[in-house]
């Protein structure tokens, strides 16, 4: 009896607290909802009225005529150490030229996901967030759904550079426009030659075994077998070669390479692919696609023959690198040969787009132009004037000059080199070098800590090649101009990829903006589904589970996981996307 009373007392206590606690969220909510609606109506008013007079649209900088104070939370590059706003060139540059009074709040890259998640979940945003890459799902959730981000459509009059880009290439605009017609942030654009599926083959080994870059899957198998048997690395030991090495859990793109040979293209390392085997490309879920069983059998065959690294499913990337350095790997996925094997980087050539059967047209995935759907977002809470000022500020990142600064910092020994850490051109090495800060841990660390933010919208970090050319034309005598004069693509691996894969590029589908319900539903389905597929695939390939015996059961189980509904949702959005083309 006593116990029951105690229990009841506790419950009363708890719910009393729950009911009576003046929740901070409540007070916040009431102000937010009123301001929220307020902001929406006033933005509509701005669309029709004249430009806010204080915003300076004619030149990149300054952004405003009379000073405006704004607060921006930013995430610096993860290559930076102890980023300090008082010791960063770009912060000072903006202070001098924009006429904005910017309070920069640093969000440590190591904890940025948690911090930003918390910011968004508790609806406590600063005026703008820079440097966090929000994808289409984030935008649907926080822009469309929660109305935390302010649409920039009506602010485009203050963004001449971005507007010009949209006019030049309407596909870019389409890729960042949400289902409600709004654009919720400023995108980051990518290099035309941003290579996906970076697989390289050791050309010295190829020569030794007398074969060529494989064009079919059968050729691939022949090559790998030859690597295994014929002492391809020439050290006298015919048993130490690992024909195909990699780190399945980290890179996971081995399957996409083989699937490309079967005619399926995927860009985002998810399980939804575009099937190019039909007359019209169709959405396919990888594990229910018509070639999945063939793929499993092919890979299982490679595994049984000892052509795959036995540690492929358990090792991390660093172990793969170590194996490559040992000189025992024939084919491997790597970001670039000079990263994994600097002393023998010229030995490696890029794979060619392959096919499963001769006579078919090879395809290879091409990177989307939009790399970050929203890299700079403006809070829905902020005033119209601040929003316009911030929009103009963000627009500055798309200008040629700011591209140069945001990528390379100031040129050394110019007026802008406030601290003396600028860059200069070394003609001998044909490279840009830096006057390093004493605490900098190398050039990359120096740039990302002392010179720039790096994680900004525009072309920075993604090497947008048309900009490099334009820069070289406009400023031929600058350090950067001189380097770019010598061409955009100069690294051997880049050239190799261009030659072997470029001719076969096809556009995959972009990332879709879904409705809130569809987003919720796909999120609900995707984790158990993908986990199951990943687990089964690994076991099919290694032979732990027999393909012949269990494949049909596998397909049936997939249906109970909701795979059909999942595929249907994507098909719907792809159809809408095609209709809008």
């Amino acid at each position, binding site marked *: 009896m006593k116990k029951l009373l105690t229990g009841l007392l506790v419950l009363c206590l708890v719910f009393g607290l729950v009911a009576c606690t003046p929740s901070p969220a409540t007070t916040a909510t009431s102000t937010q909802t009123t301001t929220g609606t307020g902001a929406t109506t006033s933005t509509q008013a701005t669309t029709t009225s004249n430009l806010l007079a204080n915003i300076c649209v004619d030149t990149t900088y300054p952004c405003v005529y009379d000073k405006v104070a704004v607060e921006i939370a930013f995430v610096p590059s993860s290559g930076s150490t102890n980023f300090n706003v008082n010791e960063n060139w770009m912060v000072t540059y903006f202070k001098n030229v924009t006429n904005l009074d910017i309070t920069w709040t640093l969000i440590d890259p190591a904890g940025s996901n948690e911090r930003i998640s918390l910011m968004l*979940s508790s609806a406590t945003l600063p005026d703008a967030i820079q440097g966090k890459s929000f994808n289409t799902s984030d935008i649907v959730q926080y822009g469309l759904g929660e109305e935390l981000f302010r649409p920039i459509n009506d602010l485009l009059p203050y963004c001449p550079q971005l507007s010009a880009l949209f006019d030049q290439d309407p596909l870019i605009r389409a890729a960042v426009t949400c289902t409600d017609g709004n654009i919720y942030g400023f995108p980051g654009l990518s290099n035309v030659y941003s290579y996906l599926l970076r697989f390289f083959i050791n050309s010295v080994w190829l020569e030794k075994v007398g074969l060529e870059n494989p064009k079919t899957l059968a050729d691939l198998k022949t090559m790998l077998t030859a690597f295994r048997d014929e002492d391809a690395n020439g050290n006298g030991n015919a048993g130490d070669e690992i024909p195909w090495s990699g780190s399945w859990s980290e890179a996971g793109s081995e399957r996409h390479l083989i699937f490309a040979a079967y005619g399926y293209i995927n860009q985002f390392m998810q399980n939804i692919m575009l099937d190019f085997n039909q007359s019209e490309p169709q959405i396919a879920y990888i594990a229910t696609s018509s070639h999945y069983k063939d793929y499993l059998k092919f890979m299982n065959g490679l595994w049984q023959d000892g052509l795959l690294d036995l540690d492929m499913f358990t090792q991390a990337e660093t172990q793969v690198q170590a194996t490559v350095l040992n000189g025992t790997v024939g084919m491997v996925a790597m970001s670039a040969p000079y990263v994994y094997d600097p002393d023998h980087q010229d030995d490696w050539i890029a794979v060619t787009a392959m096919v499963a059967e001769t006579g078919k047209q090879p395809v290879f995935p091409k990177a989307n132009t939009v790399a970050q759907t929203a890299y700079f977002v403006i809070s829905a809470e902020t005033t119209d004037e601040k929003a316009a000022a911030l929009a103009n500020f963000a627009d500055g990142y798309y200008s040629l000059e700011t591209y140069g600064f945001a990528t390379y910092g100031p040129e050394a020994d110019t007026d802008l080199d406030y601290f003396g850490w600028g860059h200069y051109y070394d003609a001998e090495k044909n490279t840009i070098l830096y006057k390093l800060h004493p605490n900098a841990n190398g050039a990359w660390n120096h740039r990302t800590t002392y010179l720039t933010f790096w994680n900004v919208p525009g072309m920075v970090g993604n090497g947008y090649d048309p900009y490099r050319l334009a820069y070289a034309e406009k400023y031929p005598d600058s350090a950067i101009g001189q380097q770019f004069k010598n061409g955009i693509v100069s690294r051997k691996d880049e050239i190799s990829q261009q030659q072997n894969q470029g001719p076969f590029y096809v556009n995959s589908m972009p990332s879709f903006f879904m409705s809130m319900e569809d987003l919720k539903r796909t999120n609900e389905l995707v984790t158990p589904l993908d986990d199951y597929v990943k687990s089964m695939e690994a076991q099919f390939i290694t032979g732990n589970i027999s393909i012949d015996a269990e494949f049909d059961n596998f397909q049936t189980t997939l249906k109970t996981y909701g795979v059909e509904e999942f595929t249907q949702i994507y098909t719907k959005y792809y159809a809408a996307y095609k209709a809008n083309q």
Partner: protein
Amino acid sequence: MITDNPMQRIRHKTTLDRLKKYFRQYWIFYLLLLPALLDVFIFKYLPIYGVQIGFRDYMARRGIWGSDWVGLKYFFQFVNSPNFLQIMRNTVLLSVYNLLFGFPIPIILAFVINEIRRHSFKKITQMITYMPHFISMVAVVGLINLVLDRQSGLVNIILKGFGSGGISFLSMQSAYRTIYVVSEIWQHAGWGTIIYLAALAGVDAEVVEAARIDGASRYQKIRYVDFPTILPTIIILLILRAGSVLNIGFEKVFLLQNDLNRDVSEIIATYTYRLGILNGQFSYTTAIGMFNNLVNATVLLFVNGLARKFGETSLW
């Protein structure tokens, strides 16, 4: 009994008098409790309204109170998800194995250390066995990878001596739980002896002397004197451990996980982590967390009830 004795009538106290006397003597204890009560109230109970996030469709702009009430929707979503049973099974099994094999070892080790006569050897043993506790999880996993490496790992080298070897332990589903539990024991056993050693310090020296005189061997001393003395501590710790049955830490499981062992290595924490990466899952992950805690609380009540029935020590 009513009497006519006036002295007895005066001595009959009212409830109020009894209460006053009680507080006069005991008020100090409530004062001692005050800081703790305030701390818990402010930092644990003030935010507790957030508990309802799992019952609502949380939208940040609307705040907790403004979000739609969905009741048990997310609980059912979790329970009905296709891999629910697998996740629960993996979590429970890891926890139970850890408890079964990992709980007794610090106790045994504490007895061993306690029995070491030579002071310097005792000190060294303590110091060295405490150290693994301080090694970060990434390094522990690095060490595990090293020892179990298919080609150059210590275990495989030894096996090669016996004619086999070359086993990729980390890809074997059957080995995963063993690897996890053994590494947990190794990492935390030494540290776990601390509380038992402190409890052993409370063994009555007189009783030990008496036992010696009675001719008890050291083993018997441990069994009949030491062990009963620290039994309350053991039971309390056991109850508390039982009350964290579903709380398997995320980091080590995650770092040791790969596609080949996923079937046994996917636990609640790793599942929630992957859900958390996808946005819009906030209410769902909160509901899962609550489910987790509810199960823990139930187990706690059950085990505590058992302890009360069969012994003297329990939580309340």
